[in-house]
């Protein structure tokens, strides 16, 4: 029972991690709260479903959704955020919220307000270790998350591009002055973060067998709580925050009967942590 709860918690945490990592990367380079990220996540789910209906191959659908979401992310950065960087921080925030609202409405108008099924038939049998059961969709979530996290770790810490990305997120102007192609790095980080969000959208669609216009609502604010918990812009902090929230939520639902919804609890934890560490768990002043 306990081990099973941990496995379920890690599944939820993996999905949170994929969404929140992109958000934290964007915050790292541009210092904006990118609410539209949750819209990109829902867009990824719809794109994945659309491609899957054309080509019934989950791998193809996942890659297509990631690439298209990534390109969407670049468009958002180029046409929306680029002109707002020298404005007060509330300007990109409101624009981001407005775009998120508009995107949700666009999904509803194009695809209909109903929940769409994402029917994927797995040929793999669930793994059973004693009392712990890992279903095929859970394996998919773990597998994709591990591959993407390893790729992200390799890219950020081992490549020249990753070095440039870290430089830009430390100090954008200084990196620019030292000859880093900041524009390209910012676009790259939007591509990667939006692709991660797209992948998360497809995974959630498959895992819960449902895709709907407002599926981004809860991730929109929960991912914010997670990146704040981890210390905004910190990739390891975000990972810790995501798995912490995922496991905590599963436990609270599984064992304790608290008269508060789990979403409010995530925020209560976040506020409590911020009182002792105002810059998050691994954040720097």
């Amino acid at each position, binding site marked *: 029972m306990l081990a099973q709860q941990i496995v379920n918690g890690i599944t939820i945490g993996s999905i949170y991690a994929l969404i929140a990592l992109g958000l934290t990367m964007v915050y790292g380079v541009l210092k904006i709260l990118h609410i539209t990220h949750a819209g990109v996540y829902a867009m990824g789910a719809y794109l994945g479903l659309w491609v899957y209906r054309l080509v019934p191959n989950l791998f193809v659908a996942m890659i297509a959704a990631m690439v298209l979401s990534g390109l969407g992310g670049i468009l958002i950065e180029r046409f929306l955020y680029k002109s707002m960087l020298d404005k007060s921080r509330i300007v990109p925030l409101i624009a981001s*919220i*407005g775009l998120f609202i508009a995107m949700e*409405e666009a999904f509803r*108008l194009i695809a209909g307000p109903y929940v769409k099924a994402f029917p994927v038939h797995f040929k793999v049998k669930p793994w059973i270790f004693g009392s712990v059961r890992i279903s095929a969709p859970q394996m998919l979530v773990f597998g994709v998350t591990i591959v993407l996290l390893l790729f992200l770790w390799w890219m950020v810490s081992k490549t020249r591009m990753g070095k440039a990305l870290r430089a830009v997120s430390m100090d954008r102007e200084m990196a620019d002055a030292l000859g880093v192609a900041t524009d390209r790095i910012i676009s790259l980080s939007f591509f990667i973060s939006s692709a991660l969000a797209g992948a998360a959208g497809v995974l959630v669609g498959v895992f819960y067998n449902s895709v709907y216009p407002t599926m981004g609502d809860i991730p929109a604010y929960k991912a914010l709580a997670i990146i704040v918990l981890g210390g905004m812009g910190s990739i390891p902090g975000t990972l810790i925050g995501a798995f912490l929230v995922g496991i905590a939520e599963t436990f609270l639902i599984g064992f304790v009967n608290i008269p508060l919804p789990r979403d409010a609890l995530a925020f209560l934890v976040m*506020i409590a942590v911020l009182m002792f560490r*105002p810059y998050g768990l691994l954040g720097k002043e």
Partner: protein
Amino acid sequence: MSAYIVTVSITTGIYVILAISLNIITGYAGQISLGHAAFFGIGAYASGMLATKLGAPFYLCLPFAIVVTGIVGAILGIPCLRVKEDFLAITTMGINFVVQAVFLYVPFFGGALGISNIPVPSFGGAEMTKPMYLTMVVFFILVAIAVDGWLTRSWAGLALASIREDETAAEMSGVNLTRFKVVAFVIGSAMAGLAGSLYAHFMSFIGAADFGFPESIVILSMVVFGGIGTLRGPIIGAIILGIAPELFRPILDYRTLVYGAMLVFLMRFQPQGLLGIDSFIVRNVKRLFAKEAA
């Protein structure tokens, strides 16, 4: 005036008070709040519960709501002092979710049923009519404008502006950050509590869903849309965005899409807001008058 127009005017008037109050916290003091609807809700619940549980008259409920919301604003403002900028924005958002959850899950606050049968205020021995209620709302808008005017002209307003522009420099110049941030939070929250009380006694039914995070976004959008940091901006923003859903009724299916797109385009091309400092309209009106004077 038809009853429909009066009703829309009253709700829009309540939004005007909310926008003015949020502008004090976010526009003058520069503290981004994504949870203003929480204070709106606290005012509405305080007023509605005093009226329904103890049978208190409206004229007692309204000041009670203002005081309670002001005190809660001070208490919740204290943790907000620990965090800055984007951390503050998310903390206030968290406060909104927690407050809403308390309303929804604690039986004392009516739970999912909310609070119903909040009495309509009486005036001169009879129940207030809707036009009378509208007159009262307009009166309180004028009170809010007066408080706003007093604040911006006083030393406190200057201190808040210095905090907004550069916190470190303000602190170095001897501005007591804690004191003035709490002042902004208390005045802004108390005014939201006033709006909440007016809302509760007008709707006669309130539920936790009315005071969620989306409502906070609506209020903040009004402030930014009209022009943050000015008095005219939030008022115009609240009027335009308050009436917009009614004007867009013929295109019902697309109105939320249009609403979102409006925010995006305004921020992209006119980030100061419609009537903000140095916005397109304000610049041209000033030029027009400058010519006439010359």
